[in-house]
């Protein structure tokens, strides 16, 4: 990427090294307070959500045995969609982040978990937990910035292929699960010589195995169970449930880093970054989505994307609890707290995707320092731990 003058002044540049150090200490204190209080209630929460997913999955598969009847098709598809969303968002993503590793339960552990998705846990944990969460929004290092196929930041040089991005954007949303799996292969690393052909072959084999199991389950095994009269209907029901899950995951994830409010960073800006600097970059590079407690569970608590990016391994159910403390830090240090309703965030993301399909473009105006009087009243968290 060519060197350019910064297009917009980052709040990071306004802070003194001492302030950044102090912010680091304050965030560490929030982290320790939560981790010292993890216990029975937290364990019960994740076990309940996991049980809920399994009950919903069983229920929906049972209903879809009668998928030849329209109402059963509709109900079964909806329940399966909800189950799949829970499984990917609040359970899979968060368990594989190691958020529940403190329980020391091998059945709910990042080292063992596999999810209902085409990505293998190994590939996803590398590209997401390590690359994306470590180099968040650093241009040229965070390959989630546009997922290597989109121009989502005006700093990215334009290319005629981006003219098509409004179209393949919709395709990506529909087949997000497969897009993520392909993205996890990190072909960029292969080009740069950071990844060997053997490694890629191994990963392709792993992905192939997972893809086959996904297809076998949703498009062969369960349709067969519905009998000759229901094969096609169960197949379309499962396909639709996967579409629902994919669209939802796409929406939540794109709203995490690409709304207008978020900052991106050059590699020079983040050289010799301290722990405090890391926290501030995460804070500036992520955006929250406001919503009801049920919304947050369905979003895997990624409505608290800011809190998640500051503490990726903190149990998701605690993000609501620490949000006021994060806002307080923002207020005292004059930092923004990026947040908005789903419709607003999603709208700004789509506008950027459209605008940056064409040459040029500038960073959108930023909201400035967080002021509590501007913030909407937040709902009570679903569980007050």
């Amino acid at each position, binding site marked *: 990427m060519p060197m350019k003058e910064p297009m917009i002044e980052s709040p990071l540049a306004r802070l003194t090294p001492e302030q950044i150090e102090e912010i680091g200490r304050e965030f560490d204190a929030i982290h320790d307070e939560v981790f010292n209080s993890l216990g029975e209630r937290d364990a019960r929460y994740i076990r309940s959500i996991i049980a809920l997913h399994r009950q919903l999955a069983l229920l929906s598969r049972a209903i879809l045995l009668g998928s030849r009847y329209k109402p059963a098709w509709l109900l079964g598809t909806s329940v399966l969609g909800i189950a799949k969303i829970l499984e990917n968002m609040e359970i899979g993503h968060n368990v594989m982040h190691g958020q529940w590793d*403190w329980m020391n339960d091998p059945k709910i552990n990042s080292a063992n978990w596999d999810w209902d998705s085409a990505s293998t846990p190994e590939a996803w944990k590398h590209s997401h937990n390590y690359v994306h969460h470590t180099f968040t929004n650093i241009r040229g290092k965070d390959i989630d910035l546009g997922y290597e196929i989109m121009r989502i930041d005006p700093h990215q040089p334009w290319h005629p292929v981006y003219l098509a991005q409004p179209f393949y954007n919709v395709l990506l949303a529909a087949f997000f699960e497969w897009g993520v799996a392909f993205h996890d292969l990190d072909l960029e690393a292969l080009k740069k010589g950071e990844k060997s052909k053997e490694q890629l072959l191994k990963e392709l084999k792993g992905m192939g195995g997972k893809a086959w199991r996904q297809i076998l389950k949703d498009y062969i095994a369960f349709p067969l169970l519905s009998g000759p009269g229901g094969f096609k209907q169960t197949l379309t029901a499962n396909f639709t449930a996967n579409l629902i899950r994919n669209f939802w995951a796409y929406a939540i994830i794109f709203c995490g880093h690409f709304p207008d409010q978020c900052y991106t960073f050059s590699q020079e800006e983040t050289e010799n970054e301290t722990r405090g600097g890391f926290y501030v970059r995460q804070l500036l590079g992520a955006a929250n989505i406001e919503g009801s407690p049920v919304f947050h569970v369905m979003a895997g608590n990624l409505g608290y994307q800011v809190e998640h990016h500051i503490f990726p391994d903190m149990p998701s159910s605690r993000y609501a609890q620490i949000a006021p403390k994060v806002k307080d830090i923002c207020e005292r240090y004059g930092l923004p707290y990026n947040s908005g309703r789903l419709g607003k965030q999603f709208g700004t993301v789509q506008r950027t995707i459209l605008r940056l399909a064409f040459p040029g473009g500038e960073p959108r105006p930023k909201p400035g320092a967080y002021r509590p009087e501007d913030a909407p009243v937040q709902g009570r968290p679903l569980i007050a731990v």
Partner: protein
Amino acid sequence: MPESGAPVKMSPLVAGALKVLEKFTSPLSPDDYFALINPLWSTRETLGRIDRVHRETDDSTTVYITPGFRWGGHRPGQYLRVGFDIDGKRHWRAYSLSSDQDRPDHKLTLTVKRKDDGVVSPWVNDPRNLGSLVVLGAVEGEFVLPEPPPGKILFVTAGSGITPVMAMLQALDRTDALPDVVHVHSSRTGDDSIFGAEIDALHERPNGYRLVRRITSTEGRAEPAHLDELCPDWRERQTYACGPGALLDALTDHFRAEGLEDRLHVESFEHFVMGSGTGEGGEVTLSATGTQVTCDGTTPILVAAEAAGAELPFGCRMGICHTCTGLLEHGTVRDLRTGETTQAGKEIRTCVNSPDGPVTLKL
């Protein structure tokens, strides 16, 4: 990866059926759905449920555990690793089983003395935990009677060291095969000793069992030198001893001095204490390759291992992403950020931990 319970051995037919079901449940296992009906049907790791709690003394409790599906059994005198979920966290401990394998109700019993500064023993001693699920690990231990049992036996036990011997006595009694047994048992007082009533009752009945009780609060500790007086024919017997390390060391020396070490079989509580390293830094053994690395107390294991040429998984190198985790098999590590220590049996992140004494990592 954290420690798991023992996998259940399945017949090839059932295993095959589960493989087919897995096509439907992938990436979960059929187990995960069966657990919604009854968690004890788990096949991936053996579970048990605490179905009865019996207070033995003021500070010890016997818990009766109904083991899950196809429990493999054990030999009297062996111990079992058990995982307890306490305050949301799983803690593993090894306890001698105080039950024999032929109990008509097929329950396992653990008898646990409460240590107030402990985590697991106060929990086990709390009757509110009736009905809780526990994870059952592997049955281990060589402290068992041969088959058939020797004709003349001497048991030497002290305090809660009686638990494995109780299992042996029950098994011998159940088959009416109680041979010539002398049992020297030490306890602090007469009334509050674990299984005191049971061994007294056994002693009262006409059989080959003779009990010699020693009350240490008034008579002092039993020393090996007292054996000539307490059990004059001890040299002719196979001796099985369980108790504190000092007692076992003294017995071992005594038997060795007489050239009778092959007649002594001991079980020490200290087996059950996992890792007690207190020093700073230490030797790191990577069990996958057998590589050994010296690491001081201020360097992360990951850094020391890489400096020595080992290739370990790593990610953020700052304790966030959990890419570098490995199972700590032996020893203790210290978190360089918090100063907190982690004991063997848990997953640790090599990028933020340094050894506290010699450690072995499954990496």
